[in-house]
């Protein structure tokens, strides 16, 4: 399987306002490794450079400095080599309402990558597309293939986007906040689907999110970013349970915990629900 290694990745944008130029250092010297069967969660606030890293990995932007290695070899930047790279590395976008072309059918979105990457011929492609739909728990029939994106719900669209990313048969998958635009009720379903597919395909996955809870649940390692820099990087449980950095602690504290609600605590006490130790003392906060 395939390992994607990023070393000292930096991206500086030149901003122009009138005649004045300024530099925005979106990403500064970020290094990590995506290896088969493992998920790396990239956590940070908006504007911390998470999505820029996704763009650099997908070669939608060129890094200012730093190297990307696929199985130890420098990645292809154009032509045939770039096509080979796209064959291995695919991405799921944040907003399923923007990532599917409103003009084209669901079938078009799945058939094109299958054909482009030689995964199917014109004759076998519809069958292969239906197989993909089945794998992401969507109805695999002609009627569904002919539907347009606007006829689907957000969760269904994101499943289509996942199926499209899987179509070239990648070994590395970048998921840029795959559930942040979805209804809370379907988030877990989509995340479980991603986790299942990762296991089945032994994918190396980069899971970009701002939600530490799902990061801990679905990934092996967590990397915390602040203003373009990685400030903490380690095994998921270690980062969550004993954060070394002040910022990580603040991120953890920012997640609302129902148990800190006084009414909830009073109700729990009245009903005699056992409380974990660290919550039992919160009554004093009054």
């Amino acid at each position, binding site marked *: 399987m395939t390992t994607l290694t990023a070393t000292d990745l930096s991206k500086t944008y030149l901003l122009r306002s009138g005649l004045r130029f300024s530099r925005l250092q979106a990403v500064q010297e970020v290094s990590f490794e995506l290896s088969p069967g493992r998920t790396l969660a990239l956590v940070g606030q908006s504007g911390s450079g998470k999505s820029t890293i996704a763009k650099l990995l*997908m070669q*939608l932007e060129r890094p200012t400095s730093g190297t990307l290695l696929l199985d130890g070899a420098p990645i292809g930047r154009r032509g045939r080599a*770039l*096509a080979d790279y*796209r*064959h291995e590395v*695919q*991405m799921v*976008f*944040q*907003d399923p309402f*923007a*990532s*599917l*072309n*409103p*003009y*084209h059918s669901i079938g078009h979105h799945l058939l*094109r*990558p299958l054909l*482009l*990457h030689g995964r199917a011929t014109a004759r076998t492609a519809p069958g292969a597309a239906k197989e993909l739909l089945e794998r992401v728990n969507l109805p695999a029939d002609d009627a569904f293939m002919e539907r347009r994106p606007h006829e689907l719900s957000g969760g269904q669209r994101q499943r289509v*986007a996942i199926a*499209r990313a899987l*179509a*070239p048969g990648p070994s590395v998958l970048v998921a840029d906040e795959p559930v942040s635009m979805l209804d809370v009720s379907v988030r877990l379903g989509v995340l479980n689907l991603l986790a299942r597919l990762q296991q089945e395909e032994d994918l190396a996955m980069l899971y970009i999110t701002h939600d530490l809870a799902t990061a801990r649940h679905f990934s092996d390692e967590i990397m915390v970013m602040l203003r373009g820099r990685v400030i903490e990087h380690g095994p998921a449980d270690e980062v969550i349970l004993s954060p070394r950095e002040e910022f990580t602690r603040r991120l953890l504290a920012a997640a609302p915990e129902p148990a800190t609600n006084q009414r909830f605590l009073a109700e729990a006490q009245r009903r005699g629900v056992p409380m974990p130790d660290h919550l039992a003392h919160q009554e004093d906060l009054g």
Partner: protein
Amino acid sequence: MTTITEESAQIDETEKTTAPRRRRPATTLVVGLGIVVAIVLFGLVAPFFTQDPLAVSNDGMQGPSAAHLLGTTQTGQDVLAQLAHATRGSLMVGVIVAVLALLLSAFFGILGGYLGGWLDEVFSLFTNVVLILPGLPLMIVIGSYVEQRGLLLIAFVLAITSWAASARVLRSQTLSIRSRDYVHAARIAGEKPWRIISVEILPNLLPVMSSGFVFALITAILGEAGLSFIGLGVVGTQTWGSMLFYAQNGQALTLGGWWWFVPPGFMIAVLGGGLSLINFSIDAIINPRLRNAPANVRRVQKAEKEAGA
């Protein structure tokens, strides 16, 4: 029989309860299309049935009669025959110009917008230069220098002065669509640039392009009429503008020959109105918020009236 009519009445009822909101914007489209189709059919079919538009006779400046439904010109030519041929000529100029302008604006707007960089800078500069070229004076200059002003030459002159505005609209739309996620997704899937432009971006520009096409059609027909009216139009082909030019020369207005200059003027006005109606409904399709705007205005007016009373 009665059961059938009852059924059809019921169907009408159900349609009425669900459909009116959808139908309302369509009325502008239906009326606009009706006008345009009628004029196009007139221009295509009528010339085969009318008299020779250039045949001179002795009964000049006659009002409408059974022999000449729209009367005759000063030299005794049949106005209806002239109108039919002029409709064909004007529409031909309009369509040629609109197609040329569409191609030019699509080339400079979409290609520059998608590829960006220095090519976009050059294309934008060129577009802006053409945009500020004063159209009519340029046409007068070119028209008066060239001896043989054929249909294609006039169409070409009109086209190069009328594509720039829609090129700018297309460029800004392309810039916006280029950075959407589905275009990134197509790049990641490995699509080639020409395929991204033609398959992923172009279909989403179709509403804008069709409204640009209709607008170019109106400007071209008006521009040609203006050129012909001042005597710099197409030589050898009749258009509404050339009819007005000869009517002016023959002093139709002072002699009271309304049947000579009203029909071409009426055709220009009605065709412009019909094309504008089509354009409004295209706008309503692009921007769904416009669909309910007339109804909203009426609602506000009604509320104000009630508040006043």
